[in-house]
């Protein structure tokens, strides 16, 4: 029987180190942020739980603008990355040889850190950037200031561009093998059954890539929704993306602002959770229809 106990506990012992880290620090961090968001902050004498900070944050126009901005940026970049990324995969599979160097080049942005991507975008898109110079030299704009602000702008174009720069190849990477398999395996059958090129895309390639592309979309969305570097380096001063806003509140001289930072944090985490649960519903319903595809 002693033998049996060892056997049953073995898998638990094996997952324990990783589990301790995840539960102790990761889940712990979320939980500590959670109680702080309700105003539990003994260090500065706050130990009563209250909805005050939630009400304060949720009714603040600055916050609502930030929330809208973050949602917009995350959605726009994840959507553009996914759609364009699938098309890039299709383009590469159908027109580029498998041993071509292009198969390596498209992956480069994936390994470039976000901070450096911000620099790359900055160099190109500021009003003194390369694009502005090109337009000036072709007499399309008269001077620097007539070039539209694409960085630090209210529309977040620079921010979205930077995320797409990294996200598009990521999507291409995760769908390209599926697209290739689709073309190798099923397209001949489909064309044999009389499908034209568009129908092949519509009925074979898109459905095949959908589960993976959806996973990619969610990963990109969730990442950018809580990421600090790019909106901090390329974003406007108002509205600010939520993580930037959270950090500023956290760093405020007035320690009473800290619970507000935690409220914003909780909203970021909550948003991510909702997103993933929607995804799980979608994914499992997709999976019923067609097996295969992976997170």
């Amino acid at each position, binding site marked *: 029987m002693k033998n049996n106990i060892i056997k*049953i506990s*073995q*898998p*638990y012992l*094996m*997952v324990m*180190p*990783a*589990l301790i*880290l*995840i*539960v102790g*620090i*990761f*889940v*712990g*961090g*979320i939980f*500590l*942020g959670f109680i*702080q968001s309700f105003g539990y902050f003994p260090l500065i004498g706050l130990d009563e739980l209250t909805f005050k900070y939630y009400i304060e944050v949720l009714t603040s126009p600055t916050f609502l603008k930030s929330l809208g901005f973050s949602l917009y940026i995350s959605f726009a970049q994840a959507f553009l990355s996914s759609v*364009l990324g699938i098309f*890039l995969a299709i383009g*590469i599979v*159908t*027109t580029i040889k498998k041993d071509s160097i*292009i198969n390596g*080049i*498209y992956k480069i942005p994936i*390994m*470039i*850190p*976000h*901070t*450096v991507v*911000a*620099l*790359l*975008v*900055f*160099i190109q898109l500021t009003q*003194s950037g390369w694009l502005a*110079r*090109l337009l000036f*030299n072709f007499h399309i704009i008269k001077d*620097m200031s007539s070039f539209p602000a694409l960085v630090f702008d209210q529309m977040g174009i620079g921010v979205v561009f930077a995320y797409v720069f990294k996200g598009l190849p990521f999507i291409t990477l995760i769908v390209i093998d599926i697209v290739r398999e689709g073309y190798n395996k099923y397209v001949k059958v489909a064309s044999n059954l009389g499908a034209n*090129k568009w129908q092949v895309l519509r009925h074979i390639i898109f459905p095949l890539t959908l589960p993976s592309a959806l996973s990619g979309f969610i990963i990109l969305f*969730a*990442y950018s929704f*809580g990421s*600090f*570097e790019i909106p901090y*380096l390329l974003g406007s001063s108002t509205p600010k993306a939520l993580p930037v806003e959270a*950090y500023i509140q956290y760093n405020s001289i007035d320690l009473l602002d800290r619970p507000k*930072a935690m409220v914003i*944090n909780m909203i*970021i985490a909550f948003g*991510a*959770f909702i997103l993933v649960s929607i995804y799980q519903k979608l994914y499992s319903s997709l999976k019923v229809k067609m097996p295969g595809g992976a*997170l």
Partner: protein
Amino acid sequence: MKLLKKSYVYFAIGIILFFLLTMILWSLINQWPWPNLWPKQFDLRGLKFAFGSMKSYRILLSSIGLSGFVTVLTLLICYPAARALAFYDFKGKKLISFLFLLPLIVPMITVVLGIHINFIKLGLANNITGVVLVHLLPGIPYGVRLMETSFRQIGQSIELQAQVLGAKRWQVFWYITLPLLFPGIIMAGTMIYIISFSQYFITFLIGGGKVMTFSLFIFPFIESGDRTLASALSLLFISSIYLVLVFSNLLVSYYSKNVNSN
């Protein structure tokens, strides 16, 4: 249609290369005044600062050391977990494998802002221990997932076969499991390394400026818009990551030249 697709591919590739090229140019100049499309004067100031100064190398090396250490530790922690998820059935397995994916879902900023004050109290803030601890987290989903997939691919029966042929436990591990898992370990390790190497915010907050990594070093130059120094440092940054990738690819392809496990 084909032409359209082809020009789209070349356009995308062109943008990537052009962005990198402009960055390289910026790292090489002294002056590039508006509205010139080509730099006016080349200068090695930037490259000297990035590639020629002890400070930059020292930070790069300590950063590589930190991320390397984090990588090894993450792999060691994820190895048994991945094995348990691949080969055992146990109560709560679903919940546990969901928890391991959590760092892909909830942003690290939420976690570190929430735990920062407790790290300070526990003496884990503003030092390397705390930084290593938080760096372990984002790699866990990749470590567990990638190795779990590898474990499933090799399967347990081949280990049993080795045992049947008389191999002891450590012999099974050393002669069978480890070599067969090798590509998976390298891929997971590369991923974990790059993720750790690129972290900015969590190192900044938990390290409190006391722990310097290359990501932290480079940040103010990008923030202040010093394109020449920022570009030169970025070049070094990207090159070091690229070398790691080349190395890991070499390892895997050297291995799979001899082995085709299918």
